[in-house]
């Protein structure tokens, strides 16, 4: 089971959903905080949902205040680096480029993509954590066979 968990994680990394920040988080996990990574991820998805909402609203208004949008995205990007959400981060960067270029169409398109990546990552991580919990704490894997 542990192996399965490890494989899933590896594939997430390989496919670029996550980057080494995720590994760093795992390093931080210890006895004092055995579910640290999951807690962080939960926090991230909660907060990022709020940010996505803000941006959605801003875009719906149709006024395209690029400065403001850029600001939101800056926040979002910062947040996404926290768990190593690599693909999401890429979309953020692209969005900001479009903002700077004043390209409303580009912004809309990118944001759609961003939301998709965000949702995908969320699902994958949920699966991952569920499995990880089932597999039990990592220490058990070191049980001598």
């Amino acid at each position: 089971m542990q192996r399965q968990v490890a494989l899933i994680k590896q594939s997430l990394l390989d496919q670029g959903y996550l980057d080494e920040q995720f590994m760093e988080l795992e390093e931080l996990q210890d006895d004092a905080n055995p579910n640290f990574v999951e807690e962080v991820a939960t926090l991230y998805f909660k907060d990022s949902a709020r940010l996505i909402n803000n941006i959605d609203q801003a875009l719906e208004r149709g006024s395209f205040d690029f400065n403001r949008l850029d600001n939101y995205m800056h926040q979002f990007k910062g947040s996404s680096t926290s768990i190593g959400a690599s693909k999401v981060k890429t979309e953020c960067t692209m969005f900001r480029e479009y903002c700077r270029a004043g390209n409303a169409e580009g912004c809309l398109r990118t944001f759609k993509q961003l939301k998709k990546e965000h949702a995908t990552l969320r699902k994958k991580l949920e699966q991952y954590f569920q499995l990880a919990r089932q597999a039990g704490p990592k220490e058990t894997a070191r049980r001598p066979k």
Partner: protein
Amino acid sequence: MDKGFSPVGLRVLVVDDDPTWLKILEKMLKKCSYEVTTCGLAREALRLLRERKDRYDIVISDVNMPDMDGFKLLEHVGLELDLPVIMMSVDGETKRVMKGVQHGACDYLLKPIRMKELKIIWQHVLRKKLQEVRDIEGCYEGGADWFTRNDETHYLGGGEDVSFGRKRKEFDFEKKLLLQDESDPSSSTSKKARVVWSFELHQKFVNAVNQIGCDHKAGPKKILDLMNVPWLTRENVASHLQKYRLYLSRLEKGKELKCYSGGVKNMDSPPKDAEFSSLIHKGETDPKQLASSSVSDPSSDVHMPPKAKKTRVEFDPPISSSAFDSLIPWDDVIEPKPTILYESSFLQQQPLPSQSPYVANSAPTLMEDEMKPSYETCVNADEFLMPQDKNSTVILQDLVDLSAPSVISSNVTNDTETMLRSLNWELPESHHSGFIDTDLDFSWIQNEHFLANTSGNFQNFQFQDYSCSPSLLSELPPHLWFGNEPEEYTLMIDNGLFIS
């Protein structure tokens, strides 16, 4: 192990509006064996800091926060509390980093932040302490060879390198000095409490400076005497004076920059700060523009007279005004009123800056007085033809207009330069001024921590609080390092020494 300084238990205050990062940083810092306090709001952080002044050793703050600009927080903390501050951001753009450094950040970290980066933040705290020691030493007036004075040998512990004060100190030696201080009960530097410069205290300070003004011999001792505050030490006054001068110099630069609009990034600032913000925004222009214009077009704004080209980018003095405002125990509200004073006095043909509420109180002329004579006594007077000239007002108006930057003559930059020079360092024109000015300017921005004085006449004053990255230091050829302490300048005047 040396007694005195240990990274363990370093008291860190982390400020970040992103809850995810706050959680991560807390964990990381705890893993470094630091004592961590987290805070999601800048205002809250300031409150915490002010409440218990000696409660924290270092502050780490994000740059982008909704309730207050990270740079503003940085200034508040630096000026009021004199704590080292590290900035963080996901954005590593040079101009932002530069801005951080200009505002006194001792480091600028990029997110995602790694453990290894946090493991070494304690060096900033140590460095700061060492600087404080040097500050104090530097406050002794009168002569370059105070190291050999008997009453000070205890600092050196005897048999130390006498050139200690002249050259850039060896880190170990500095540490030793610091530790000696701490173990020496008679040492005034050990565990000195931080002085909080309240409004009243600062007023006294400014009044004292004004009084001395005309003589322009405003040295810490005289100021202290005039202030007549029994518990205040000369060292306290000296370091405050240093900051004050830096603040004024930033105001001056701000005057210049005020005219440059340009790609204004919409920064989040509270409505109350609107006026200052607008100043900030106006002042903050596309650095590329500025930099390139300054390099390519000698007659454009950012320039000093052709001899001395500024190639650095200047930013945001209004932020420093506001930082000073916070010396008043307000809740970081930057009152519009002072800003108005700033603007109107600026426009009204003030040849010299007098924008801070403090300075405004004590009359703009103070500064002028303080400065005028200094020009005369300083270097080549023609450099410093004070913009009492007719041009001032016209230019200022145009500046505000900002649509015609080319109209701005170098007189305006003369303004800044001269004022800065009078306040701070006198650069002999005989030196390769262009280069030096650039470096000097750069050093001002950097808070000159790394500038050591190698030139004989200067004592080893270390300037402000924050350290700069060593790489910056290495960019400066040693002969250009100056002890850039305002006191030096005064000392120079006092002793009639100035480099000409």
